[in-house]
């Protein structure tokens, strides 16, 4: 156990860093502050969950930040034109799935480099978001309790996004370690040709992985929009690198 902990160098770094910061300012270790840190991390964590699966298959997704911005704006627009927030949330997730599927389909079926495909999606959607929002934030006026709580609410004094993050982590752990799909993800990352020759439709599973990544980026977009009470056209800039860093620090190798 100790040995396993010791081999996780980033975690040790984090602990050392936390100790130093809490010596400089004891308020760092207060419950309020830690919850705040966790809430801020949760958006990255949601994206990183999808990114983990993508990186496990040997790919990469640079478009997560742009998908977040576009879907956030899309969701805010839907609510602004009077769609009820629950439906808007569902439609937004579907839009995320569509973008992810497009990424995955180009990568698996057209055999293009994941880096290039998602770079294109990233640039394309960033531009589309700016055009769509006209460069201005879209405020949420009629979010209702359900929508406002997604990003900004509390349950038992703990922010809702933290619950979302924890539920996602548990689900992802289960999917990766206890389902056929998870096994295929690892197998594709280990040796895609051998996996295909073993009778597995690797293109299909890779596409699904990117679709899930797109959906989780959209979920992150909804959380950010709900929390800020408006959709920012420049939201999620640089999030792809945060997510990739989180995945690598978490022990998945590129």
């Amino acid at each position, binding site marked *: 156990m100790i040995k396993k902990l010791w081999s996780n160098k980033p975690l040790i770094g984090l602990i050392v860093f936390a100790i130093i910061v809490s010596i400089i300012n004891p308020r760092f270790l207060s419950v309020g502050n830690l919850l705040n840190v966790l809430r801020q991390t949760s958006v990255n964590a949601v994206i990183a969950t999808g990114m983990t699966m993508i990186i496990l298959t040997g790919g990469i997704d640079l478009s997560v930040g742009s998908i977040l911005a576009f879907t956030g704006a899309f969701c805010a627009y839907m609510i602004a034109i009077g769609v009820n927030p629950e439906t808007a949330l569902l439609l937004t997730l579907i839009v995320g799935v569509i973008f992810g599927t497009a990424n995955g389909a180009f990568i698996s079926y057209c055999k293009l480099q994941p880096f290039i495909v998602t770079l294109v999606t990233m640039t394309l959607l960033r531009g589309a978001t700016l055009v769509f929002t006209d460069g201005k934030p879209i405020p949420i006026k009629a979010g209702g309790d359900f929508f406002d709580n997604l990003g900004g609410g509390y349950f038992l004094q703990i922010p809702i996004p933290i619950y979302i993050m924890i539920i996602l982590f548990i689900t992802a752990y289960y999917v990766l370690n206890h*389902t056929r799909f998870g096994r295929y993800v690892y197998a594709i990352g280990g040796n895609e040709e051998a996996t295909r*020759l073993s009778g597995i439709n690797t293109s299909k599973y890779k596409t699904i992985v990117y679709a899930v990544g797109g959906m989780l980026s959209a979920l992150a977009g909804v959380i950010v929009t709900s929390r800020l009470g408006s959709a920012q056209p420049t939201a999620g800039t640089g999030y792809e690198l945060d997510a990739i860093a989180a995945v690598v620090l978490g022990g998945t190798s590129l």
Partner: protein
Amino acid sequence: MHKDARKLLALLNVTECEKILVSDLTIGKRQMVEIAKAISQNANLIVMDEPTDALTDNETASLFKVIRGLISEGKSIIYISHRLKEIPEICNDVTIMRDGKFITEAEVKDIDEDFIIKNMVGRTLSEQFPRVKVQLGEEVLRVENLSGEHVKNISFNIRKGEILGIAGLMGAGRTELAKTIYGYYKKTAGNVYIEGKKRKFNSPEDGLGVGIAYVSEDRKGDGLVLGLSVKENMTLSSLPSFSSWFGLNKKKEKKATKDFVDKFRIKTPTYDQIIKKLSGGNQQKVAIAKALLTNPKLLILDEPTRGIDVGAKKEIYDVINELKRKGMGIIIISSEMPEVMGLSDRILVIHENSITGNFPIEEATQEKIMRCAIGVNQ
């Protein structure tokens, strides 16, 4: 630097330019480059682990010439090989190991091949290829005028309990034929019948679906996922039978793994051992188990004993004969003539992507097969 490289390669009879990328060379030539690398370090002791595994006879001959040159300069070589024919040709002393233990050593001039085999397997191989006679059953597979990117106008059939050997030179299209039937390569013309029913399929997924399993010749390349465990590799093709809506049934999976580990005597410390750490023979047994777990009607074994030791070979032959007794249709592709002749009931010979010979085993001779393999008309 280029000059030195040029000289070394010339020594090994490699005529390619030294600036060419290694990935553009054939496997045999890559092996020669590796050997040149070892020689270039000017070491006094060189360990060669199966250096001739991927070499042609010509390349082997030039390698031996180099080895003799090195020895005359006073260098020593440890030569690890499972090709017993090479040992009297190139070695002075021989050390035999089995299961990680030292067994015996001797001077090569005092011993013969039987002595080596006996000590490697721990018992005398009375008959290396015990032929099993079974009553042939119904037709499992019939291929009619099959053509694809890599094969031309192939027709043959195979029945239950029959072993069909496919012989031919390296690069003749044997593996491509197998992969085309399996669905890995596209079929452009012709029909495939499974148990008399015409089936159309163009992916490995569907190949498995109609009851064909393929064991690759290249375990490291596309046969196994080396970073996954013994268990994960073994059940990779048959995962649907171990999963429900609630995920994988790990108990059932473990039991299936245990059954095959016991039955095939796969030497692994645990089922979760990373497969990269197993020996070639044990890896091959896992690969065959993976195929068998899909309950195939037809099993295609591509070079099933390449790069594995004599003891494990014998065990794999036993497995093949056992499957034959149970009435499975089996295709064996092999570059080792004794293996094809010893196991098969019928032999197809492939030359330049087409069939040039089709003999019942009673009529097959090494000479006939070789003539077809090099495309000389009878």
